[in-house]
């Protein structure tokens, strides 16, 4: 092949001189040479030379096109030449006078630059005028290509905006569409702040809502939504409501478009609008024009002038609220499930805005439960669930038939979502309660596989509606009581379900004196295993037994006895009052307190709209809570060994949380804690994988496990010590994880350093015991088991003979509990800074001590914490300095001070780098750190990023 090189090159060159026809054969062989990885470098270089020369010589557009293609192939397959290719194409580009070829060269350049970052700066040399001139040429394809790729080039946003805005007038619909897309892209870059420009863009997008082309209208809807948002943000406070209503109504006018894509886009956009007047919202649920919108006409006068297509509309904003009439009615009965889904989805966000709207929307949503499409039904249920969590779900009797119908739906998802809603639902009268119970019982009969969840739901709704339970149980008592032959009919699921319902009654706050016959509790004891399995989220078997036996003696239960932790966040009216401290009322409080606070406050449904900040905050809190809840589910996957899935989920959680990072409203500390927890779970999952029965011929390096365990240890330690204000439950949770890690360490013969681990084990257990006692918290199963077998483990502490079975059993008894973040932990962290050091090293004289002026900021460090400054040159050259907080001033939340850190043993060197870090002594860790010169006595946990300090010897002059 390569022998032909000469002829190939000749052929190519000949093109430029005499022969006008393209020698495609030569080009094809050139290309095959380029993409063949075994072609020698010299050949490629020769080809490159030829092509470059050719590029300079020829003017024939078709030949140039192919040459550019070949050159870009060279750049991609032989990265060492990419720089050269880049420059030769670039010089050609500057000479070229054909727009089409310029565009092609630019495409080649930008794709090379995107691969090779070092060349990106060379792109910056091309000025805006050059880029923009491309799309002012007559070639439409270049124009649309350029507009859709404009963001790849370094063009100033305002220039880009002008170009995009101008081309929305283009006669070619495709160009208009791309220009609108470009405007949407620009709106996200948030550099445009000029009010007039924003308004201009918005108006232009509004004009294009009437375009004849479907795709343009679709893009216009996106643009109206985005620029409308910016417009609302840019106007003065008093006009915000007006504009956001105007944008909303504008979008509503598009929901009756004939194109499905436009309708979907319109509904998606509706859901993104954060503030809308209640009367307009209500209008969207009624096809008839409501009096309220008729009279007030909040959006301009009723003077719609004739607007024929394409005609310039001077009055952009004369739009009436009645345009919004029935938008959601239409959306929910649309022919396309995509539209119905999208309509349900936007209701999801809009129902937060107004309780009245939510109530009306529910009438429609209930009907959607009869939809053909499973996706839409599920979406509707999820929207209802969301409404329930916002306490906006007001279910009426007329809804019950439809709603309870979903309990016997074919789909598992539908059933379980319906039950989730039922858990939160407030049932106002006995009839509704009765029908709900009947629905659940029917669900149980038809789908026995749902038993556990149904029991748990029964228990929850029973707990919320104690009075009704008593009535119902009276009615059913015949069924529950043993039949006349003295035979208990307890194997019937129905009876079991009724028993679960019955035993929930004494826990109801409404039912202080419970009139459930005490023998029913004794009956329930016979089904202990089954019931406790179903209620495992609420209590364990022992607690249940204790509770049942207590109740079978007397049915008066004082809530303060607190048999069970309430499931906060899932029951709207549970009695969590005692968990709320007065301090918990501030906005910056943590997740659950906020939840509770929200429930206790009477909802001001009339004015819920303008400040959504609280909502946003609780959104984050909710999201964190949800993630914690989901992590619980993950454990199941871990045990199954679906590691890829687990890691993917954890990653997605992390990404989700990361989106809140910029949000100043969220307590960064809570987020940090959640991140830490996610890290721990990830490591634990990774470690756990090593203990699963090997699936295939997997091989792990021993070092890897050791490394992972080390990481896990460190992260757990950070979790334990770097957060202040953890509740006892939370601390116990962390302790349990540490215990598991110890057991894991012990289980691998090749790893364990028995004595240290055992010592740690017993220490943690005793600490846990202390916490249990102090907080009167029921210890976890795992901890109980571990305590029992601790003695056994200990006796075999000579290493090799440690009982593998015992440990295995212990590990089996462990399962990840749901982490309930009740308060807001304070993240202990620190920052070190040494301004100016990057450019100018600190002077020092070797052998003499040097003082390093560090600017230290400490967050949430109390004066009891013992902090150490660690300074390392290399492993052998390490010094610790104690940071005396009493001299630093400031409060516990933030302390900021400058500390002159002395470093004594400066080595003989011209310059050196000192790595400085702050560590905190772990209170409960053992003393096993041996330092020679008065360093810390306990293990340290490092609370800041390591900072590099540069020192330079003072030059002798």
């Amino acid at each position: 092949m390569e022998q032909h090189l000469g002829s190939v090159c000749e052929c190519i060159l000949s093109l430029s001189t005499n022969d006008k026809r393209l020698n495609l054969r030569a080009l094809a062989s050139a290309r095959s040479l380029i993409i063949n990885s075994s072609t020698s470098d010299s050949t490629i270089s020769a080809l490159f030379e030829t092509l470059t020369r050719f590029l300079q010589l020829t003017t024939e557009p078709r030949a140039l096109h192919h040459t550019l293609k070949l050159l870009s192939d060279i750049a991609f397959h032989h990265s060492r030449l990419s720089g050269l290719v880049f420059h030769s194409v670039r010089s050609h580009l500057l000479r070229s006078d054909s727009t089409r070829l310029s565009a092609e060269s630019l495409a080649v350049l930008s794709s090379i630059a995107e691969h090779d970052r070092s060349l990106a700066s060379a792109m910056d040399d091309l000025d805006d005028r050059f880029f923009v001139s491309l799309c002012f040429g007559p070639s439409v394809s270049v124009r649309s290509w350029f507009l859709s790729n404009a963001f790849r080039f370094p063009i100033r946003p305002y220039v880009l905006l002008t170009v995009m805005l101008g081309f929305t007038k283009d006669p070619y619909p495709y160009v208009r569409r791309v220009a609108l897309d470009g405007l949407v892209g620009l709106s996200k870059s948030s550099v445009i702040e000029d009010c007039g420009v924003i308004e201009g863009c918005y108006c232009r997008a509004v004009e294009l809502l009437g375009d004849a082309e479907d795709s343009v209208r679709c893009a216009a809807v996106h643009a109206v939504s985005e620029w409308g948002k910016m417009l609302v943000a840019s106007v003065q406070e008093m006009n915000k409501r007006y504009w956001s209503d105007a944008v909303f109504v504008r979008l509503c006018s598009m929901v009756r478009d004939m194109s499905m894509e436009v309708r979907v886009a319109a509904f998606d956009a509706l859901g993104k609008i954060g503030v809308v007047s209640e009367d307009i919202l209500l209008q969207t649920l009624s096809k008839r024009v409501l009096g309220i919108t008729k009279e007030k006409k909040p959006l301009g006068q009723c003077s719609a002038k004739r607007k024929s297509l394409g005609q310039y509309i001077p009055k952009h904003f004369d739009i009436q609220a009645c345009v919004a009439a029935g938008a959601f009615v239409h959306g929910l009965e649309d022919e396309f499930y995509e539209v119905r889904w999208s309509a349900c989805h936007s209701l999801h966000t809009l129902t937060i805005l107004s309780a009245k709207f939510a109530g009306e929307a529910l009438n429609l949503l209930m009907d959607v439960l009869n939809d053909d499409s499973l996706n839409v039904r599920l979406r509707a249920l999820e929207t209802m669930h969301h409404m329930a969590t916002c306490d906006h779900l007001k279910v009426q009797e007329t809804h019950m038939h439809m709603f309870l119908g979903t309990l016997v739906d074919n789909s598992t998802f539908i059933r379980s979502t319906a039950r989730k809603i039922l858990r939160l639902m407030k049932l106002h009268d006995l009839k509704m309660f009765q029908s709900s119970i009947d629905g659940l019982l029917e669900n149980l009969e038809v789908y026995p596989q749902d038993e556990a969840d149904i029991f748990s739901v029964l228990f929850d709704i029973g707990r919320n509606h104690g009075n009704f339970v008593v009535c119902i149980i009276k009615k059913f008592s015949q069924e529950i009581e043993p039949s006349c032959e003295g035979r208990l009919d307890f194997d019937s699921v129905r009876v079991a379900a009724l028993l679960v319902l019955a035993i929930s009654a004494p826990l109801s706050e409404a039912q202080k004196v419970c009139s459930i016959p005490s023998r029913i509790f004794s009956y329930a004891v016979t089904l202990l295993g089954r019931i406790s399995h179903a209620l495992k989220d609420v209590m364990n078997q022992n607690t249940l037994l204790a509770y049942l036996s207590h109740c079978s003696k007397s049915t008066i239960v004082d809530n303060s006895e607190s048999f069970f932790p309430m499931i906060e966040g899932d029951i709207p009216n549970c009695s969590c009052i005692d968990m709320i401290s007065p301090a918990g009322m501030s906005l910056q409080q943590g997740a659950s307190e906020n939840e509770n606070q929200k429930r206790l406050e009477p909802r001001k449904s009339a004015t819920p709209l303008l400040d959504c900040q609280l909502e946003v905050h609780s959104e984050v809190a909710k999201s964190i809570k949800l993630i914690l809840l989901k992590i619980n589910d993950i454990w199941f996957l871990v045990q199954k060994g679906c590691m890829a899935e687990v890691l993917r989920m954890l990653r997605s959680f992390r990404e989700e949380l990361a989106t809140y990072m910029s949000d100043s409203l969220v307590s960064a500390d809570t987020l940090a804690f959640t991140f830490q927890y996610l890290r721990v779970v990830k490591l634990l999952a990774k470690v756990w994988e090593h203990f699963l029965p090997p699936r295939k011929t997997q091989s792990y390096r021993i070092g890897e496990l050791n490394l992972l365990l080390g990481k896990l240890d460190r992260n757990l330690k950070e979790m334990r010590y770097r957060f202040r204000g953890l509740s006892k439950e939370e601390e116990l949770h962390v302790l349990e994880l540490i215990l598991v890690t110890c057991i894991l360490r012990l289980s691998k013969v090749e790893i364990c350093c028995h004595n240290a681990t055992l010592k740690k084990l017993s220490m943690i257990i005793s600490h846990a015991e202390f916490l249990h006692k102090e907080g009167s918290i029921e210890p976890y199963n795992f901890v109980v088991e571990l305590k029992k077998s601790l003695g056994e483990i200990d006796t075999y502490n000579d290493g090799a003979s440690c009982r593998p079975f015992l440990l295995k059993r212990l590990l089996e008894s462990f399962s990840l509990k749901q982490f309930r973040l009740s308060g807001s932990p304070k993240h202990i962290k620190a920052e070190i800074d040494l301004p100016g050091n990057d450019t100018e090293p600190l002077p020092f004289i070797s052998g003499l001590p040097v003082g390093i002026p560090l600017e230290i900021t400490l967050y949430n460090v109390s004066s009891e914490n013992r902090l150490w400054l660690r300074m390392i040159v290399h492993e052998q050259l390490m010094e610790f300095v104690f940071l005396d907080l009493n001299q630093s001033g400031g409060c516990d939340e933030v302390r900021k001070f400058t500390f002159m850190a002395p470093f004594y043993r400066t080595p003989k060197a011209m310059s050196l780098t000192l790595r400085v870090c702050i560590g905190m002594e772990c209170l409960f860790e053992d003393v096993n750190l041996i330092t020679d010169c008065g360093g810390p006595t306990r293990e340290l946990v490092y609370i800041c990023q390591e900072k590099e300090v540069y020192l330079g010897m003072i030059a002798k002059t």
Partner: protein
Amino acid sequence: MAIECLVLGAGQEVGKSCAVVTINGKRIMFDCGMHMGYLDHRRFPDFSLISKSADFNTAIDCIVITHFHLDHVGALPYFTEVCGYSGPIYMTYPTKALSPLMLEDYRKVMVDRRGEQELFSNDDIMKCMKKVIAVDLKQTVQVDKDLQIRAYYAGHVLGAAMFYAKVGDAAMVYTGDYNMTPDRHLGAAQIDRLQLDLLITESTYATTVRDSKYAREREFLKAVHKCVADGGKVLIPTFALGRAQELCILLDNYWERMNLKVPIYFSAGLTIQANMYYKMLISWTNQRVKETYATHNAFDFKNVRSFDRSLINAPGPCVLFATPGMISGGFSLEVFKLWAPSEMNLVTLPGYCLAGTIGHKLTTGKPTKIDLDKDIQISVRCQIHQLSFSPHTDAKGIMDLVKFLSPKHVILVHGEKPKMASLKGKIESDLGIQCYYPANNDTVCIPSTCWLKADTSKTFIRSSLNPNFKFVKTISEDKLNLVSKETEDTSVLQVHDERVAEGILIVEKSKKAKVVHQNELLLMIGKDKHDVQFAYCCPVQIGNLERTKGMDFALSKNVVSTSDECSWLHLLFAKLSTKLGGNIQDFGQHLQVDSIYISVCLKDICPYRTTDGPQKESAVFFCCTWSVADVNLAWEIISIMENLDLSII
């Protein structure tokens, strides 16, 4: 050019739809229906109005039928076979398939049962159908050189279509009956955004705004479910086509989801045959049916079995669809007689029931006994559920369609007069579109679009290829209303593309119109370019001389010396630039703002000077010239100058 619309039927009434439209010399008949309420000559449209000589083949270019309902197709065999029309007839495939069934059914009822004189025979129907050309949705049919028609999906019934017709530049749409919301088996009407001169739309529910259909479906399902759960039997009397399939899909889905095992029966006959048609014509159904079609044909009802007479008295619950609707006789009456006496059973009546039928009696009031005839009396103890589903769009749907299409004119047909009047008012006031609702045999004339073809010059084409946009700030009225009290900038940025503005349309006698670029115009007509220049000699006060005496430059009493000329100009420049900002430039001999030149006027008598101005002693004169573009600015500057006093520093 004008479009003429002659309404032969369904003008201010419902029944015998027929409209003859003449566009640019082409005549199209839309629908050819019969009125079911009359038995005399009023049953058919008055075809004589189309052509006095009864030569329909030359009078009419084609017939378009929108769907198979008799009030839209009923008179077709009569018109073709009896009146003798033999031109092309267009309808969709399903309409072509189902129309003969409907026509034959009607003919049989009329002739066999009621013993009336036959208006057309079975043969006529078959012959007529042979002339029909079937079209597909969105298929553009070139009827002849100038006339195109295209069908769009209309919902309503299987195969219903709206028709678009275009002759030359004039275009219109005739909707027939349509539905803007989908139901369980048919989709919603769907049409492109077209440039229309005329829209002829039905207006059956011109004032009704219907709520979501879901609520009624829910009530229906609840009633049926409750009845069968309690062991009762449900009778649903329906017509064979349409409603039966819709309800059946609804029930079949519900059965599926709820795991119900109660049998659903179809009484044999037309329904089974109709189901077959539905199964074949899947592409005319709604999106869901189409989507799931590959895995499961929605008309293959899973829970439906065919009914056997012996099952009428079989124990246990069941659901039965029986023809005809309204329980006007036949099988549904037979079953009703047997099932009505039990209170466990349910009769569901979908849709409207004609007065006089048992269905009507059941829905009005709660009769306990119904006299079938003199001898037979049925005691009615069963539950009655009425269901009102309509396949017609409601007022909001009509408005939505009109708004979406934005035609220049609307004609309402197929509705009741007072309601049409109200809808007309709404269309005119809300959408600003002219609207008519002619009575039968009336003609409406509307102007139509006429496009003129023009040549273009190459320069114009070239300039049109390159974008040439400008940004202009204009004041938006609405915003003005809102923030009128604020003093902030209330202009809105707008984009203009100047390409069209640069073209000039030239229409010369006996020549084709031509568009040229503005630069070419002079060349073409062989004339020189003229600029209009304005001039005004403006006096500027210099106060009394005593006050200026102290100045450096000497002033002779009457003449301003040439050397001072510049000084005055400088002085004026200084004054003006404080007022105008940096726009003004000083060129020594003159000042310039855009095209405005200002120089000192030394003439005693200047043609641009007004005589009633101040005397020379107290003023310096400045000659100002400017071109048209800066008229406003120029007068603004002049008014500033006139109010100046150069002597005050």
